[in-house]
């Protein structure tokens, strides 16, 4: 890393921004508004060691937007349909997908619980959500391992196996579900012996406080949504 920015934002800020961006995809808005929602995920990713993802994202977006403005109005044929699909999906959905990617990749379970508890979100929600984050990597690891086992018995993605897709689903599903049941029992037992059922409010090693970046990003995105609402309903409000 060339410079030390120490960039980090609170999980709550990420969630608020995510909500704002997902609200803004519903309508077409002029560039000066959509620019904000496009750049927030870019900067977030760029400053937190996902530079490659950030650059790929912004390039894809720019290409899609360029296609949309200059080429598509005159294009015809099958190619046009493909390009339309690409450009519209990219310009509308990409910012929110990238913000989601950023949120998930950069939020630690403990940090998430800490900030949710600060906002008085009950354990009934924080515990299952943390389990989700923790268990997703294990499931993919299992899928890989089962795929390996199937290959050794000659059921790769071959003709033989494609003939009976239902069997494939069954072969994957049974081991995964059996291990899910096992994991949920063992994880529950381990968590209980570590006091997770304590009714007292948990404390947290990491103190979650809003810092300058939180205020900056919140201010920008709230300004964005204000302009957006003004643009959509402003005329009506004034009239």
């Amino acid at each position, binding site marked *: 890393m060339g410079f030390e920015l120490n960039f980090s934002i609170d999980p709550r800020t990420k969630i608020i921004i995510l909500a704002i961006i997902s609200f803004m995809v519903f309508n077409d808005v002029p560039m000066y508004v959509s620019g904000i929602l496009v750049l927030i995920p870019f900067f977030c990713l760029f400053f937190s060691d996902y530079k490659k993802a950030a650059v790929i994202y912004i390039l894809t977006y720019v290409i899609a937007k360029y296609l949309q403005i200059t080429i598509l109005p005159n294009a015809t044929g099958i190619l046009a349909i493909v390009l339309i699909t690409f450009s519209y999906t990219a310009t509308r959905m990409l910012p929110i997908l990238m913000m989601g990617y950023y949120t998930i990749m950069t939020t630690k379970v403990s940090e998430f619980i800490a900030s949710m508890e600060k906002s008085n979100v009950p354990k009934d929600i924080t515990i*299952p*959500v943390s389990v989700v984050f923790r268990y997703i990597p294990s499931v993919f690891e299992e899928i890989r391992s089962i795929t390996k086992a199937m290959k050794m018995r000659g059921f790769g993605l071959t003709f033989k196996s494609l003939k009976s897709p239902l069997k494939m689903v069954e072969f994957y599903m049974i081991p995964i579900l059996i291990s899910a049941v096992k994991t*949920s029992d063992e994880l529950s037992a381990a968590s209980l012996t570590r006091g997770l059922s304590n009714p007292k409010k948990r404390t947290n090693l990491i103190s979650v406080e809003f810092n300058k970046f939180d205020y900056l990003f919140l201010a920008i995105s709230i300004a964005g949504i204000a302009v957006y609402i003004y643009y959509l309903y402003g005329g009506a409000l004034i009239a």
Partner: protein
Amino acid sequence: MSERLNVKDLITVGIFSVIIIVLIFIFGMLGYVPILMIALPILAALICGIPYMLFLTRVSKFGMVTLMGLIMGIVMFLSGHTWVPIVTFTVCAFIADCILKMGNYSSIKNAIISHGVFIIGIMGNMLPFFILKDAFMSAMRTSMGNDYVNVVAPFLQTNVLFVLFVLTFICGLISAYIGKLVLKKHFERAGIA
């Protein structure tokens, strides 16, 4: 809520949410092929019955199914699917929970119907398709001409949405029934259901 959920219930909800979400994501990959995107709810409904029925063998309190809906919605939101799935999943899961409660969490019939309702929550993930529809139509009009759009348009209208709802529900029932069979064939004999 008569009985509060304990840590074990919460962890069970988390684990099974993961299984269902991962299944939806894997089949959601097919959604990048534009036309198949419409079929996503049907595919998901067909596949999720098995884990759902296994999940129900561990549910005996009101709230667990609702909570699973909410959690799935939240995870969808966090992974960039807008906030709409939170609403649709929670509402559908709540209705499913009520159906289960009416059957005292032991009626198989209610369990199957509840899956049909529960899985309709996935329609929330379809939102991008309907947002994009308008943009799509206007772009098509300029490039493909009015005639083309007039032919295609009816397929993208609300009646498609309605058909999708019904199909998702029916596939949900079928898949829950299959789930019940798989439960008998595998999990009961393996001693975990």
